[in-house]
């Protein structure tokens, strides 16, 4: 197995373990646990989708798994938004208008992703298992702007929280903000920006940066002094 695929499996596994761990802490009374479980579960699907898309020579199978990664990315960014609204506590409510702005384009984009209007075709490149997708640029831009907007809105909400929370929460928000920012910058660079220019060599690197978010939360759950 290539180092690239191994990296994707490890990143996926870490996210899946974290998702199960946080979910098992209880989601009935904790929206934080619920949305973080979603976030890490979709991170897992993203990583596994990328791994599978790089594991077949059959371009039809590659197409299914490669397209699924863009759907997972939408789910990741929506889970992130809902998570930061609740973490560490709610200071504002998502308005109906904002919910429409989030969900309607998401549903539209999911349909588009599985049509020829998003990725027109795939060709094998670099090796017999790797590929390049050719995008229909206008809708790729719609996807790009949507993804960036929701991610930046999430970071903005988190920054607002940082300014008002106190004590332990302030430290937690700061760490999480930085971890999400790192995952966002590298995720966008390797899995959106470079792809736009047809460079697919590094798309396996994006998921590994989600591990920073997991490490932060792991540290919150198991702090040194409570061990």
């Amino acid at each position, binding site marked *: 197995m290539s180092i690239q695929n191994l990296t994707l499996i490890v990143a996926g596994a870490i996210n899946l373990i974290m998702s199960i761990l*946080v979910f098992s*802490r*209880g989601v009935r*009374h*904790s929206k*934080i*646990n619920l949305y*973080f479980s979603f976030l890490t579960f979709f991170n897992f699907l993203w990583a596994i989708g990328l791994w599978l898309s790089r594991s077949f020579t059959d371009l039809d199978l590659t197409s299914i798994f490669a397209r699924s990664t863009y759907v997972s990315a939408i789910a990741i960014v929506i889970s992130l938004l809902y998570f930061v609204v*609740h*973490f*560490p*506590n*709610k*200071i*504002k*409510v998502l308005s109906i208008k904002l919910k429409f702005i989030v969900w309607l384009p998401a549903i539209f984009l999911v349909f588009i992703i599985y049509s020829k209007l998003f990725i027109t075709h795939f060709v094998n490149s670099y090796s017999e298992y790797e590929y390049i997708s050719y995008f229909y640029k206008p809708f790729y831009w719609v996807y790009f702007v949507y993804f960036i907007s929701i991610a930046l809105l999430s970071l903005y909400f988190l920054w607002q929280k940082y300014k*008002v*929370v*106190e*004590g*332990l*929460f*302030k430290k*937690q928000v700061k760490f999480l903000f930085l971890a999400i920012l790192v995952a966002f910058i590298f995720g966008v660079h390797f899995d959106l920006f470079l792809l736009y220019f047809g460079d697919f060599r590094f798309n396996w690197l994006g998921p590994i940066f989600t591990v920073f978010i997991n490490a932060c*939360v792991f540290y*919150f*759950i*198991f*702090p040194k002094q*409570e061990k």
Partner: protein
Amino acid sequence: MPKNNKKIFLFLAGGTCIFTEAGHIFSVKSQDDIEDWLAQMPELNILADIEPVFISGEDDLIGPNIWQTIAKEIIKRSEEADGFVIVSKIDQLINTSLALTFALQNLKKTIITTTSRISGSNFIDKKEVISNLKNKYGGLSLRSNLINAIQVAQQPLPAPAIMFGTRLIAATRAIFDPLGDVNVFSSISDCWGKVDFGINVKSNLKYNQQKAKIYSDKLADILVFDDIPGVPWSFDRRALTAYRGIFIKVDSYQKLGKNKQEQIIKWKMPIVLYNYHLTSTSKGAISVSNCTFNTALIKTMWALSNEFNKKDFENIMTQNIIEEFLN
């Protein structure tokens, strides 16, 4: 305010100091301050439908009178409430929580107490402490304590508990630990919950299924002192008439001196000898151990406030009424 929010009554009885946006300390000294005080924490109304109730001001003394008022106000509002959060002074928070635990047994409403790191509206002598707290924790902790308390108050708990820092502690298990860092309260057994990644309350906690027992009498005045082996007790017997009983914290390793044992017999009033680990027996006194000092103290005050006869008092003090004894 979002729909379907639970109704939480927020009782204010001291311990209300917070930093305003301008960096000044603001506390609730009278009913008129509540609106401005709540305006500093608009997020509270997102977490629940908050209804504030003024009990006492920041500079008022907290004791049996206030505890009785809080208990009565809780009973009055228990039908419409989903939970109660009591803000009171840090030095009396354990006793306040315990007084409510004994007064409102098996109430099917969650009661959470919390506080600010400082109490009282005179800050001249606390300047350095306040400055340190601001640098270290970014505030006086009440804002985050309240947010956590309001969320926990919406979940079923078997008895009143203290929410402070990262810990949710049953009142009967709480110990004041002023040298603690983030947490100034410790628990003698497992905490009921902790704040790590959000609030994590133990999943097996629920309301006590037994019938609620409400005791609305004011807790009795008792004389409390520490026994020092070798130092005699000198009391004017007339002074003791002001008290319903005597609570003595004793050494766990030495028996009371013969003179002291004779004094206890002569006093002919309810006397409790307390030590966490073990107490030697003395005729005419009840020995209590295996629970916190505050629990034993408030239990004595509660038991003496009710018209139990001497035999009942002895039984009650040794019975596990609200799971106050370990094991």
